[in-house]
């Protein structure tokens, strides 16, 4: 039996979704993009007299729900299937878009360089429990204007895993699409084997900005899957109650869904989000708050009710270093998310309210993800009934260390974490240098990065990617791209 977690009963889900339909029909959504407004009104949506709010009928929403795929797959840069997003499948992704990078030596945040990103991308190839990569942080050795597309460029070049990413601007989207087209070879190939997921964020409360709504349309047209990332903040730009916040999240996400499905019925989407309980004491949006995690799991249930694959920014921490808070917030989130069956769980490696990325934490989080994957396999009987002969063997031998039963099942029953997790007794721990978690994580990073790895992509594609990026860099005042060593 796969263990499952639920916060909402069917009655509450119905109440929340019905309330959302009511709000969409009567309060409407503010949209700052003329062509998106026309798209909706052309399909019968009503417009407020000031031309800003669009009212979506239940029928229109139902039509969008009916055409939304209940699952889709992601493929790596070589075209191999990597993640099947649907049902109760669970896949992990690193957190996305950090502004700062935690320096291994000083343990202080700093701006990242291209060389840091290359270490990240290489390391991600070895993170066996994290199925997809993300454009995890930006580097500051390129013009700020290309900081969104440059991350994708580096990711595509140096790690084959599919990528969770997003554009900051309209121009950013075009460049990022062209990079993916270069990898796949044609628009059809890209649409049939998506290599990325783009985030598109409504603005709380009940709003879509020009850029973000355009992103939804552009992604649908290109066949690039979108994760809707609504961010209602409880008690601030959303009701203080978790239920009220779920109503708002449903409204904002359904409106995105309608934009996407009217653009192209069948466009792949994730019912995602990054809501938070707003901490009025510190003016922050804690991702490690238990209420935040409950909202995430709650909206995942609503997504499942609609039969739409889900995503959440959960399994990350607000701590500033790799400390106990970082560990407990991340594992709490990752465990709840796995039990809830969130299909794409974004967060590994991330600290400080989605602002700070740490390679040491990524390596630790990979272990957390590994443990939750084991947990999801549940407790299944395997040649356990009848057990008389096994117990007779145990009694006569005094142990089962080399029993056939043990040898057969040890690896599917017991999950052995890497040496990042301390399992030594004190004497051995001392003998091995008494190293801290951070030191163990760093050792693992260096081991992975030192490994010989095949180059990703063909030389022709690599060259094409470089040409696209260089053109953009030149448009933004750079003579050349940072050297890749």
């Amino acid at each position, binding site marked *: 039996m796969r263990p499952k977690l639920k916060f909402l009963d069917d009655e509450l889900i119905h109440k929340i979704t019905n309330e959302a339909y009511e709000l969409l029909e009567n309060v409407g959504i503010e949209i700052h993009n003329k062509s998106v407004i026309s798209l909706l009104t052309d399909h019968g949506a009503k417009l407020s007299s000031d031309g800003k709010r669009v009212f979506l009928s239940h029928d229109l929403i139902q039509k969008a729900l009916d055409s939304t795929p209940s699952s889709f797959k992601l493929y790596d840069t070589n075209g191999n299937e990597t993640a099947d997003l649907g049902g109760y499948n669970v896949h992990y992704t690193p957190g996305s878009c950090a502004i700062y990078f935690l320096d291994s030596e000083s343990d202080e945040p700093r701006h990242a360089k291209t060389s840091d990103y290359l270490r990240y991308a290489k390391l991600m190839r070895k993170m066996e429990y994290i199925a997809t990569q993300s454009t995890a942080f930006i580097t500051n050795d390129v013009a700020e204007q290309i900081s969104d597309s440059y991350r994708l460029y580096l990711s595509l070049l140096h790690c084959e895993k599919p990528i969770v990413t997003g554009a900051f601007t309209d121009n950013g989207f075009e460049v990022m699409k062209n990079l993916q087209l270069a990898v796949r070879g044609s628009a059809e190939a890209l649409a049939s084997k998506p290599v990325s997921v783009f985030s598109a964020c409504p*603005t709380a409360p009940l709003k879509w900005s020009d850029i973000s709504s355009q992103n939804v349309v552009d992604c649908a047209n290109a066949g690039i899957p979108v994760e809707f990332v609504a961010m209602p903040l409880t008690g601030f730009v959303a009701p203080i109650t978790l239920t009220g916040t779920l109503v708002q999240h449903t409204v904002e996400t359904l409106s995105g869904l309608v934009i996407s499905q009217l653009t192209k019925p069948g466009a792949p989407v994730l019912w995602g989000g990054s809501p938070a309980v707003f901490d009025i004491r510190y003016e922050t949006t804690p991702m490690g708050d238990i209420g935040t995690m409950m909202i995430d799991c709650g909206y995942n249930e609503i997504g499942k009710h609609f039969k739409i694959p889900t995503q959440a920014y959960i399994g990350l921490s607000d701590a500033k270093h790799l400390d106990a808070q970082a560990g407990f917030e991340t594992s709490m989130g990752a465990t709840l998310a796995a039990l809830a069956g969130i299909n794409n769980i974004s967060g590994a490696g991330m600290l400080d309210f989605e602002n700070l990325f740490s390679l040491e934490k990524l390596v630790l989080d990979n272990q957390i993800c590994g443990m939750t994957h084991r947990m999801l396999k549940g407790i299944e009987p395997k040649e356990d009934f009848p057990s008389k002969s096994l117990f007779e063997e145990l009694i006569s031998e005094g142990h089962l260390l080399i029993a056939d039963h043990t040898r057969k099942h040890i690896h599917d029953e017991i999950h052995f974490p890497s040496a990042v997790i301390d399992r030594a007794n004190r004497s051995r721990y001392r003998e091995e240098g008494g190293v801290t978690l951070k030191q163990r994580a760093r050792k693992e990073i260096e081991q992975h990065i030192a490994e010989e790895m095949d180059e990703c992509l063909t030389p022709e594609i690599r060259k094409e990617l470089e040409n696209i990026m260089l053109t953009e860099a030149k448009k933004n005042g750079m003579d050349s791209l940072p050297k890749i060593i």
Partner: protein
Amino acid sequence: MTNDILTQLTQVLQTGDATAVSDLTKLAIDQSIGTKIILDDGLIAGMNIVGERFKKHEIFLPDLLFSAKAFYAGLEHLKPLLLKEKIASPGKVVIGTVQGDQHDIGKNLVGIMLEGAGFEVVDLGKDVSPEQFVDAAVETNADVIGMSALLTTTMPVMKKVIDLATERKIKDQFKYIVGGAPLSDKFAKEIGADAYCFDTVSAVECVKGFVKGK
């Protein structure tokens, strides 16, 4: 008597009781306590205490908002008198999130706090172009231009605002404060801004410092 009313005013302001603040301000006006005295020693003095308590984490954002609402209930009665007596506001700040950036939560909080501290705030919203910033600052005769950016891609717009003011030879008419998660002191210096503010309290302190002795 004067002191009694002003002390009471600062006290009720702290509890966020808008009706009481409104009544006491009216009473103070009726008692002919000077307009500037009511403003400085009653309303602003009360908000300063609230600001200090907020800074020490003794009270939280909603408490501060209640007090700010109450402050405005009192200020409404003083406004016509301030105009008539040509008493300038303690300072005017033009504020906005820069072009291409939709993140306005932090900027809104800063605006609320500045208003709460008695400053006049002209909020230009989000996605604000350099021209809009500079034009608004000139039109409203602002003391400070406050810019917010949360995206690395939009940070360069802040420099464009300052460059535009320089180009128009009016840079020194204003002070420039910047804020938002990707910024730093270093960045503020590089683009020629006067201060980087990491939260609402630091923003209010900066602006106070800039308009002091104006």
